[in-house]
């Protein structure tokens, strides 16, 4: 064998071993062999280094391949291949491990065929050479851009695209040359490398690869798990490279963009690909705007601006906001969708739409609620005869106060508080509270209630409240709430509690908050102007959250006093992180 043949053989061997190594397919014995070659053979090292350098050059130097897209015009150098075939014939065979194609389909997914897109030049060539059938066959084989599927539609709510195709969940999406225009609705797309994005109409975007998307206009929220670090969103004037995070990007029609970091960190570069620009690393809570000149400015973070998770069953999107328990009592999902009712009858567990003024007595039984998956049940607490049940799973409250079982009205959600506490008339001889109470009654009591006696801040239209007269108890089921949000975690229950301002001042009451039957908070003799700032930490394993308002045992007026015990939870929220 000649020297040249030996050299070719070595070159071929090194190239194949390197390729196996790069692709992660190399076997241990092949790896050892490569190490031995590199350690002991300078020629092998030289070949190896050259190949590596070429690999990096092809990878990093965009212009080398970027200008090669028009493939039909380029010359084909037969001489080059002839030279190579000689090398190849003299090369040794290297075993390439047979790797089984992995089972891709875990569950049945309907895959959508996307028609081949021809490049401009190949279309022209195609038409010009229509007669030459042989040539046509060759062109068909080589000219079309390969269809590379890179992502799957995972959720969609009322989404309509300009091409009128139905992008149902399960639809596979290919890399595109032309952008998709989402005209209506919201869509969630999961990339094959693990990142997922929620895009809200109106938006124009283009999938570039399994880890790259261009957002030309509109709003996009990205969830990027650790294993998919490096996911990139390109906009007309910036690029965001994710480092394992969640963030939202908004691109305006003038091409300027804004990045809001919700979790983790990412690097932001101004300027489009290939242009020089500024670079910054953003961490959670920071937001930046990139203007038309490519300058980066700090802006106010907006946490709830982006649709983050789609809840197609409810037909709604989650924007990172907390769950409002007052909305759940109205029959909603906690995101402002409750419209059907205004409260719950504490004896039947039914949703009510009219408040019936009534003074009743209950027996302390636990009544399951069926109209909302998020409410487990209701009860009239009376601990005088021992522990009482506070959940459908039989959790018991052992330190429930002894009450006379009296209650008034129902469990009421007050969506808005529009009775202005300052509207009372100073020339009216009746006390302010009484005036307000009467006013509220006249105006459709009690949906147009109410703030707290002592709250420093006047409630606004954004605030909500939940009214529990003594003696009433209500248990929420947190499990279905948690299940709706695979990306979020319930961490806390919070509310401000006190005496409703329509209540005459001598009133006082007791408050208990329980989690799975365990007492987390017990406050007695709460009277004007006391306020309780409730902050109960919750973990993923916590399921039943019980709120219980009872008459204060300390008051000598007994039942008469209980008739005035309006406990109000201002902004009762289950907080999500």
């Amino acid at each position, binding site marked *: 064998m000649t020297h040249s043949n030996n050299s070719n053989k070595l070159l071929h061997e090194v190239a194949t071993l390197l390729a196996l190594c790069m692709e992660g397919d190399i076997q241990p014995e092949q790896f050892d062999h490569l190490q031995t070659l590199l*350690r002991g053979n300078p020629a092998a090292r030289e070949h190896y280094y050259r190949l590596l350098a070429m690999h990096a050059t092809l990878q990093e130097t965009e212009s080398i391949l970027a200008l090669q897209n028009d493939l039909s015009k380029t010359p*084909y150098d037969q001489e080059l291949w002839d030279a190579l075939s000689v090398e190849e014939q003299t090369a040794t065979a290297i075993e390439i491990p047979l790797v089984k194609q992995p089972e891709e389909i875990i569950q049945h997914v309907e895959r959508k065929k996307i028609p081949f897109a021809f490049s401009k030049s190949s279309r022209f060539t195609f038409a010009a050479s229509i007669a030459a059938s042989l040539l046509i066959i060759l062109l068909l084989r080589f000219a079309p851009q390969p269809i590379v599927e890179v992502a799957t539609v995972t959720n969609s709510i009322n989404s309509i695209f300009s091409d009128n195709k139905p992008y149902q969940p399960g639809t596979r999406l290919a890399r595109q040359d032309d952008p998709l225009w989402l005209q209506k609705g919201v869509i969630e797309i999961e990339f094959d490398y693990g990142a997922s994005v929620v895009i809200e109409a109106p938006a124009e975007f283009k999938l570039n690869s399994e880890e790259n998307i261009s957002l030309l206009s509109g709003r996009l929220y990205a969830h990027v798990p650790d294993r998919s670090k490096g996911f990139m969103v390109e906009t007309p004037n910036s690029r965001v490279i994710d480092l394992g995070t969640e963030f939202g990007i908004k691109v305006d029609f003038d091409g300027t963009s804004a990045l809001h970091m919700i979790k983790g960190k990412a690097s932001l570069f101004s300027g489009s690909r290939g242009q020089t620009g500024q670079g910054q690393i953003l961490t959670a809570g920071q937001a930046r705007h990139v203007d038309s000149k490519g300058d980066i400015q700090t802006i106010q973070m907006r946490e709830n601006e982006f649709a983050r998770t789609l809840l197609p069953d409810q037909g709604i999107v989650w924007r990172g906001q907390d769950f409002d328990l007052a909305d759940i009592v109205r029959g909603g999902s906690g995101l402002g969708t409750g419209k059907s009712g205004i409260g719950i009858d504490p004896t039947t567990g039914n949703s009510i739409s009219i408040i019936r003024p009534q003074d009743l007595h209950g027996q302390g039984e636990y009544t399951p609620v069926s109209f909302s998956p998020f409410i487990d049940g209701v009860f009239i607490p009376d601990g005088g005869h021992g522990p009482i049940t506070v959940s459908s799973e039989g959790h018991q409250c052992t330190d429930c106060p002894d009450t006379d079982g009296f209650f008034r009205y129902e469990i009421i959600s007050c969506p808005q508080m529009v009775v202005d506490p300052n509207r009372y008339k100073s020339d009216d001889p009746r006390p302010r509270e009484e005036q307000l109470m009467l006013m509220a009654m006249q105006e459709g009591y009690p949906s147009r209630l109410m703030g707290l006696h002592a709250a420093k801040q006047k409630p606004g239209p954004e605030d909500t409240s939940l009214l529990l007269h003594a003696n009433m108890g209500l248990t929420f089921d947190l499990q279905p709430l948690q299940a709706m949000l695979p990306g979020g975690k319930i961490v806390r229950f919070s509310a401000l509690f006190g005496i409703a301002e329509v209540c005459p001042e001598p009133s006082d009451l007791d408050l208990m908050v329980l989690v799975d039957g365990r007492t987390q908070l017990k406050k007695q003799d709460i009277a004007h102007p006391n306020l309780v700032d409730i902050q109960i930490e919750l973990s993923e394993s916590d399921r039943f959250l019980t709120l219980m308002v009872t008459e204060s045992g300390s008051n000598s007026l007994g039942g008469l006093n209980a008739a005035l015990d309006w406990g109000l939870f201002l902004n009762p929220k289950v907080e999500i992180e």
Partner: protein
Amino acid sequence: MNYSYKELKNTAGWNMDNKDKLISVSDSKSFLSLLRRCQTQIHTYILCQVPNRNDAEDILQDTIVVMLDKFSEYREGTSFLAWGIAIARNKIKSFKYKNRNSKMIFDDSIGRLLEQEASKNPEFFQDESRVLKGCVEKLEPKHKRYLLLRYEQDMTYREIGRQFNVSMQAVYKMMTRIQLSLLHCVRLSLQRESSL
């Protein structure tokens, strides 16, 4: 951490006599243009030590993030490449430590031998990227398509196989053939240039 030029020169032992050695930094805007000039070399350096494309790209990404993060510490007048390589070296070290039980990690002696290989021809990268473009142009369209899928679309050999509906063995064979033809072409072109 600040790196003095001397420290960097000593630590790198790399392609230090590159023309890009002395770069003045006026402001942070220059980061990307500096990076573009030496990213290929940093990538090659990482590949020499960690010859798996995904691992190498992860390390490169982490390196760039640190470079960007510490860009204010980069000292004007020193070699940006050497500074980047010093950062990459730390990243490689922690990668190797994390994967110390893997059998597929080169021992350090090979990395050093390859660094020597690199220092033989400091002009290599400029020369190569100049002639490589011409060589790619000479390829048959189909073979160019393979390169585009591999380097532009970042597809694995397995994905390329699926794309062309051929076995993985066929892709290995084809890619090796293409790379060797390019290597051959680069050599030939450089020889022709020097004989002119």
